C-alpha cells in the first residue's frame, strides 16, 4: 500500500524533473559584444524647452536634449537595440518585470527593450500628471494619464513590435518600447558598446535597430563559451 504511493511519487518526481531538464533551454555561456558607430554628419540635437512645466525644468541644470540620434565620442551611437532575430534556441521565460520611469519629464530609459508578454510597470516620479500613449499598431493601442500619487500602470505586450511612446501632455517626451521575441538583447550605451550574454553554441542572426535609421543584421556563429564581436555602423544624415 504505502510502497505503491512511494513508487507513484518517485515516478512522478522523475518524470517532472526530466521534463524540466528538457524544457529548459541549454543555458549557454557564449556572448556577442560590439560597438555601434555612425558615418556622416548627425543631425543637431535640439535643447528641450520645459519652461511650461516648472516642476520638471528645475530638475535639470542644463537643458535636456532630444535623444533620437544620441551620439558620443568616437562616432558612437547610443540607444541602439541589438538582439537575436534568428537562430535563438528558446529563451528563458521572462522572469521579473521591466520598469519604465517618467522623471523630470523624460522617459527613462529612452528606449526600453522587453520580451513578449513580459510584465511592464510604468511609474510617474514627477509632481505633475503624465500621459502615456504608446502608438502601437500591431499590439492594442491605449492612452492613459497618470496623475501624481496614482499607482503604477501594470501592463504587457503580446506581439513583437517597435512602439513609439509619447506623452500627450508634454509633447517633447518621446521614447520607445521594443517588444522582442527573445530574451537575448542589449542596448548600446553612451559609448556605443553592447554585450549579449548567455548564448549557447549555434548560428545566430543579430539585428541592430535604431529609431531613426532602421535595422541592420549580421550572422554570427558561436561555438562554446567564446565572445564574438559584431560591430554595426549606421549612415546618418544631417537633416
Amino acid at each position, binding site marked *: 500500500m504505502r510502497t505503491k504511493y512511494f513508487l507513484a511519487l518517485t515516478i512522478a518526481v522523475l518524470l517532472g524533473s526530466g521534463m524540466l531538464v528538457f524544457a529548459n533551454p541549454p543555458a549557454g555561456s557564449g556572448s556577442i559584444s560590439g560597438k555601434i558607430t555612425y558615418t556622416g554628419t548627425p543631425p543637431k540635437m535640439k535643447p528641450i524647452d520645459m519652461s511650461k512645466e516648472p516642476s520638471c525644468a528645475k530638475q535639470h541644470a542644463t537643458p535636456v536634449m532630444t535623444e533620437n540620434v544620441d551620439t558620443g565620442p568616437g562616432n558612437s551611437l547610443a540607444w541602439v537595440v541589438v538582439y537575436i532575430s534568428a537562430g535563438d534556441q528558446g529563451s528563458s521565460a521572462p522572469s521579473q518585470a521591466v520598469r519604465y520611469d517618467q522623471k523630470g519629464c523624460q522617459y527613462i530609459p529612452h528606449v526600453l527593450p522587453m520580451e513578449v508578454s513580459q510584465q511592464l510597470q510604468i511609474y510617474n516620479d514627477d509632481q505633475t*500628471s503624465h500621459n502615456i500613449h504608446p502608438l502601437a499598431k500591431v499590439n492594442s493601442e491605449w492612452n492613459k494619464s497618470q*496623475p501624481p500619487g496614482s*499607482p503604477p500602470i501594470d501592463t504587457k505586450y503580446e506581439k513583437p513590435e517597435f512602439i513609439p511612446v509619447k506623452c500627450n501632455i508634454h509633447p517633447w517626451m518621446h521614447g520607445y518600447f521594443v517588444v522582442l521575441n527573445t530574451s537575448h538583447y542589449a542596448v548600446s550605451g553612451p559609448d556605443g558598446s553592447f554585450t549579449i550574454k548567455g548564448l549557447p553554441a549555434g548560428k545566430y542572426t543579430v539585428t541592430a535597430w535604431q529609431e531613426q535609421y532602421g535595422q541592420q543584421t549580421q550572422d554570427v556563429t558561436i561555438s562554446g563559451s567564446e565572445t564574438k564581436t559584431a560591430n554595426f555602423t549606421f549612415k546618418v544624415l544631417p537633416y
Partner: protein
Amino acid sequence: MSDASAQPQVHHLSPPTGFIRKHVFSLDHKVIGLQYYGLALAAVFIGMVLSWLFRIHLGWATAAIPGLQFFSPNGAPGGVITPEYYLSLLTMHGTIMVFFVLTNAPFAGFGNYFLPIQIGAEDMAFPRFNMMSFWTTFAAFLVMMAAFFVHDGPPISGWTAYATLSSVGRDAGPGQAMGQNLWAVSIALFCIGQLLGSLNFIATTLDLRTKGMSLSRMPLATWAWFITACIGLLAFADLLPACILLILDRTAGTSFFNPSGMVVSDNLQPHSGGSPLLWQHLFWFFGHPEVYIAIIPAFGIVAHILPTFMRKPLLGGVRVLIGCMVAAGFLSYMVWGHHMFVSGMNPYSAILFSVPTLIITIPFTVATLIFLGSIYGANLRFNSASLFCLGFISVFISGGISGFFLAQPSLDTYLHATYFVVAHFHFVMAVAAIFGIFAGTYFWMPKMIGRMMNETLGKLHFWLTFIGVYCIFMPMHYLGLAGNVRRYSAFTDNYLIPLIPVHKFITVAALLTGAAQFIFFYNLIHTRWWGPQAPDNPWEATTLEWSTTSPPPFDNFGGRHIVVTADPYEYGVEGGATDYVMQTTTGAATKH
C-alpha cells in the same frame, strides 16, 4: 403625418387598465409629463454628482476620491481624477444638464402635463407622437449613459463638442473614440424626440383650445411652452443634420469639419479641406436658441405662478410679457455669432452679431421691470413656490447683467472662455431655469400627484439653495475678471495659483448646496406616498388646471365641456366671495 388625422379616433374612451399601457407606453399626456419629469429628476441627480466630482478635483487636484477607481479604473487610477476624466465629467455634466434637465423638465415635463389642461383639451393632438417623443428621449439618455461604460470613457470635448476635437476620432484622446460616437448618436436621437414634442405642442396649442380659450386668454405658461416649441422646432431641426455630418466625419471618413494636413498624436489625418468653424456655426445656430428653450418655459412658469401669490394680475396684463418672449425667441436666431467673436470669424461680423445680442437684453429687461412693477402694491403670500419665483427674479437679474459684458467683442477678447462666462450662463440659464422648475414643482405637485408638499422643508430648501447658488456662482465672476480660464483640470499657471483658494470655497459651497437638494428629493418622495391629500385649488388660482380634480381624471375634466369665460389672471377682484375669478365657471370641479 397621416397618422395624425387618426388621433381624434384613437382617443380612448376609458383609461387603459394594463400596467404597461397605463404607466409605461402610455398615451396620456399627464403620464408622459410625469415620465419626462422623472427622467429629468434622474438626470439632474447624475449631473449634480458629476459636478461634485470635478469640483472636488478643481479644489484639490491630487485628492483621491475613495471608490471612484472602481467606477472608472482608467479615469481615476487610485481614485485620483485624471485630466481626461475631469473633462469627461465636465462634458457629461454639461450635456446631461442642458439637454436632459433644462430642456426636459420645464418644457417637455410641465408642458406635457399642463399645456393641454390649461387650454381645456383632454390630451395632446398626437398622443402617439407624444409617447414616441418620450421614449426616443429616453433611448437618447440610455445611449448617453452608455458612454460611461465604454472602454476609454465618455467624450472629453465639452457639451459644445467643437470640431476638430470631436470629429477626428480616437487620436484626439481618450473618450474621443466610442464615447464621442455615443454622444453624437444620443444627441441626434434627442433632437428627433424634441422635434416630435414641439410638433405636438404647436398643433395642440393652435387647434385643441376649448371654447372661449382665445390666444389672449391663454395662461403665460402655455404661451411660453408654445413659443419654446416654435424655437425648438427650428433649433433641433438644425442640430440634427449637424450631428449626422459629425457622425459621418467620425465613422465614414468624410471631411465636413476636418481640414487638410492635420497631425494628431503623430498621425497625419486622411482628411482634406473641411471647416472646423462650420460645426461652430451649425452648433451655435442651435445653441443660442437652446438657451431660450431652457429659460423661456421657466420664465412663463414664474409669470404664471407669481400673480397667484401676489393676488394681482401682472402689470400691463399678459401682452407685454408675451411680446417680450416672442421678441427674445425671434432675436435668438440672429445672435449665434456672439459665441464666436474670437473664433477666427471675420471681425466685422463680430459687430454685426454684437448689436442684436445687446438688443436682446431689452425684452428681458422690460420683462424684469414688469415683474418688479407688478410686485408693487401686491399682497405677497410666501410659500416655497412664491419664494422660488422671487429668487428667480433675483438670479435672473444677476445673470442677465453679466450678459452686457460678454455681448461686447472688445470685452470678450479678455473674458471669453473664462469663468466669467461660466458664471453668466449658469446664473441666467441653469440656476434661473432650475428655480423655475422648483417653483413649478412646489406649485403644481399638489395637482400632479394629488398631495401637498411639505412647506417647512420647501422653505428650508429655498433658503439653502438661494444663498448657495450665490456662493457658488458669484465668485466665478471674480475668477473670470482675474482671467481664470475655464475647462482647466488643474491650475498650474503662475497667475492662476493664487486663485485656487477661491476654487476651494466654490467647491465647498457646491457640495453644501448639492447636499441641500436632498431635502427636496426627500420632500418629493415623501409627498408622493405620505403627503396630505391636496384640495382641487389649494392656491386659490384661476387657470383651468385648478378647476379639475387633483390629480385630474383620465380625460382631464371628467367629460365636462370647458367653456372659458375670463382672462387668465383675474386676481384682486372685489365684491365677491373670493378675490379671484376662475377662467371657467362650467361645472365646479368635483370634490374627492
